């Protein structure tokens, strides 16, 4: 056995150019799958981690998915708003530890504006326990202050002190602008990989006063204004709730859903995000399928390389046969060779994967908001690598079988 392995090794070394190329072909394809898997996991974690530590999201009556989509992802608009009084009520609820009010509807050059209060910067958490961090400046202090997300800052080139004019509605070129009330950038957030990278934050009072004055200029109620009743606060799109004890969340959810003051919906963010992701996951299925196909092509290149070497190695087989090797010994040798090649390919793939993650995680995080941590291979990854290794060996059995037949037929006849 020792001899066979050393023969396999030396034979590979003898064909080192082909061997190295084959190893890299397989290693690259394996690492593609690993990187895709990491990106997929990063995307999933980013998506499902877009809001954490928030136990409930309450908004006007709709479905939980819709509520999540417009309140967190800022996709679509709410049909109705929640009155500030309702928010005040639940804010003081004994089970509630904190709340974050959000009022949406305005935009700036296509980027959504989130009207909120200081609690957003205090309590909002994403990806488990991360809160907003400021690259420069800080929370909005006066009603003229606006805090901008990382993408907004990068794409529009804004910095502290830049003047911002908000528009009503989400259209990029809105006819209705609040040009009489320019804002000034008071803070820039660092990238979070959440939709808030594309948001601008103003104080609730600022939105109220914007709309209080020009409320009569337009009557479409993307956000309902209750400015007439409550002069300092606008109607809310939603409010996020952190409970004092997690176990209170379900009871509180029921209480909100059955609240008689106005029709409300309360969504459990974790559950709803998981549902949303499951709906989107056909895309990563496709991605994975492509990666698997690439691996198969990579492994086929090994089979082809082995097949090509078989003919020129027929005399090698005859020599080994003359020395007392049974055809099965020759199979063992070829399989040992494939094991070495696939084994080396696995190492190459891990090295490439980590090199990619190390070099690209910064760019990918900034550009796509996907967090790629440098972590040890997960169980799933180890399993994938194991399966790829075994598949390699299995595929190598095909040329090995051919070699067995050759060895039987050729015997001691040297064929070149």
């Amino acid at each position, binding site marked *: 056995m020792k001899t066979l392995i050393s023969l396999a090794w030396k034979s590979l*070394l003898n064909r080192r150019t082909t061997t190295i190329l084959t190893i890299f072909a397989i290693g690259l394809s394996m690492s593609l799958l690993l990187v895709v898997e990491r990106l997929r996991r990063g995307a999933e974690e980013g998506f499902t981690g877009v809001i954490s530590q928030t136990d409930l999201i309450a908004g006007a009556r709709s479905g939980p998915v819709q509520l999540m989509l417009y309140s967190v992802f800022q996709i679509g608009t709410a049909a109705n708003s929640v009155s500030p009084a309702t928010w005040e009520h639940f804010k003081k609820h004994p089970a509630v530890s904190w709340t974050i009010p959000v009022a949406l509807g305005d935009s700036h050059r296509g980027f959504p504006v989130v009207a909120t209060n200081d609690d957003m910067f205090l309590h909002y958490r994403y990806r488990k326990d991360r809160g907003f961090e400021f690259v420069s400046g800080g929370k909005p202090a006066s009603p003229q202050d606006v805090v901008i997300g990382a993408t907004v800052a990068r794409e529009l080139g804004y910095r502290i002190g830049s003047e911002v004019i908000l528009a009503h509605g989400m259209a990029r070129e809105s006819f209705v602008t609040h040009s009489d009330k320019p804002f000034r950038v008071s803070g820039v957030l660092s990238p979070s990989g959440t939709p808030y990278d594309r948001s601008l934050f103003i104080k609730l009072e600022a939105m109220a006063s914007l709309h209080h004055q020009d409320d009569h200029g337009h009557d479409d109620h993307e956000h309902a204004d209750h400015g007439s009743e409550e002069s300092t606060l606008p109607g809310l799109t939603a409010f996020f709730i952190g409970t004092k004890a997690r176990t209170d969340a379900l009871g509180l959810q029921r209480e909100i859903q059955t609240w008689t003051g106005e029709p409300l919906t309360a969504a459990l963010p974790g559950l709803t995000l998981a549902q949303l992701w499951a709906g989107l996951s056909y895309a990563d299925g496709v991605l994975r399928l492509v990666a698997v196909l690439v691996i198969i092509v990579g492994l086929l290149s090994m089979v082809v390389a082995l097949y090509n070497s078989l003919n020129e190695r027929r005399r090698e087989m005859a*020599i080994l*046969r*003359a020395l*007392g090797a049974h055809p099965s010994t020759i199979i063992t040798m070829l399989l040992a060779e494939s094991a070495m090649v696939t084994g080396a390919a696995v190492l190459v793939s891990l090295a490439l994967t980590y090199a990619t993650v190390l070099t690209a995680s910064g760019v990918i995080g900034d550009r796509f908001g996907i967090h790629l941590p440098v972590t040890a291979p997960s169980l799933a990854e180890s399993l994938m690598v194991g399966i790829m290794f075994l598949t390699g060996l299995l595929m190598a059995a095909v040329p090995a079988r051919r070699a067995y037949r050759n060895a039987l037929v050729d015997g001691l006849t040297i064929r070149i």
Partner: protein
Amino acid sequence: MKHMIEIENLRFDYGDGTPVLDVGSLDVAAGERIFVCGPSGCGKSTLLGLLTGILPSSPGTVRILGQDLALLRPHQRDAFRGAHMGYVFQSFNLLPYLSVAENIALPAGLSPERYERAGGSTQAHREKAAQLAGKLGIGPLLERPVTSLSFGQQQRVAAARALFGNPEILVCDEPTSALDHLHRDRFLDVLMEVTRECGTTVIFVSHDVGIARRFDRTIELAGINRAFRASTGDD
């Protein structure tokens, strides 16, 4: 005298019912050096295949060292060949990715018997290989890659490998047919000397009758192969 090889009523066909080999009786004594000659198609390759256990012997008997090869399973016949026979091909005897010394010691890696008989340790094998190489006149080439050797040198390395670990029988299939007369004679000189020293039984197949006189006995296969005589009508 002890019989090394005994053949009785050995008949062989490649499955088509036309016998290619039909030998009534052929005995080779231990230490005897036999020259086997004959024209192409007289059954030389078949005879070698049967002697070495590559081809299943049927019907009839091939007995080597008293062992009836037909009673062995295929992998046992392979192991038997590895343990008791050395084989030199006409050409391309060496594994290109091993050094001369590694090529010579290769039988020890594939046959436990040869491993033991060559000294039972890597150190002993190295000395044994050097010793054999010295006798065959290739001592200085031991660490060279085989691809840098001349054809004559390669054949000597092949002979050294075939004799490594003292197999009882050395089978040579036209090993000199690609050598010029000078190199052929030098090769035979050292081969004869080493096999005499070791008491190796030699089956040397060649169509070059000019070297027949150097052997103890010449067997004209065409003469004893009844199948060949029948096919050519030479009765």
